[in-house]
């Protein structure tokens, strides 16, 4: 966990509870907040999914998330940022990530929240293994060597 008065970055094996993070972003100077939540969906690559397993290169992932938060503060007028990602085994509908951005004006919160989730999907070392209903499993982006 990396916590400053402006941002709260956390990678955890525990279930995510949204309410725990809301007091951190409360401030009479902010008029808007945007929350993005990612949850475990029952379908991927055209196949039914029963669970997801997330793995992480933890020290780098937290630092990369911190760099993303700092880029937001440099680009937009944002007041507070929370980025929490769960790792380990997650069941259907469980949240895997929460991104919360509070700002004076809504455009900044929307832009920064979108930037953060897109950045996570590009450059934060976290990997997802899809566990399908038939008990087969595969890392996302895994190359099917049989097809090469």
């Amino acid at each position, binding site marked *: 966990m990396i916590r400053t008065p402006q941002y709260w970055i956390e990678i955890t094996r525990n279930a995510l509870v949204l309410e725990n993070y809301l007091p951190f972003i409360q401030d009479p100077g902010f008029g808007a907040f945007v929350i993005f939540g990612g949850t475990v969906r029952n379908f991927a690559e055209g196949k039914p999914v029963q669970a997801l397993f997330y793995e992480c290169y933890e020290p*780098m992932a937290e630092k990369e998330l911190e760099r993303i938060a700092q880029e937001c503060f440099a680009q937009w007028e944002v007041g507070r940022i929370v980025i929490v990602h769960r790792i380990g085994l997650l069941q259907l509908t469980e949240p895997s*990530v929460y991104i919360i951005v509070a700002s004076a004006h809504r455009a900044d919160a929307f832009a920064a929240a979108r930037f953060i989730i897109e950045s*996570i999907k590009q450059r934060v070392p976290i*990997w997802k293994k899809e566990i399908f209903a038939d008990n087969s499993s595969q890392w996302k982006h895994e190359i099917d060597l049989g097809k090469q």
Partner: protein
Amino acid sequence: MKITVQLYAMLRDLVGSETVTLDLPEGATGSDLWDQLCQQYPSLAPYRSISRIARNHQFVTETEPLAPEDEIALIPPVSGG
């Protein structure tokens, strides 16, 4: 020099180990590291062009020279979120 590489996700599964220690000439770069790694573990080769190298928790290019005290990890395509 000895360089220990951390492996994650499908790369770790393909090698069957979380780390691999390589013996590389002084001043070797990320590119040299990949060359030797793929020679030892040919199943990694398809991932070379789509993976990145992290040195001390930051992405670096393949031309960057490495040092034994660096923490090196190979980062295959990420899928967090």
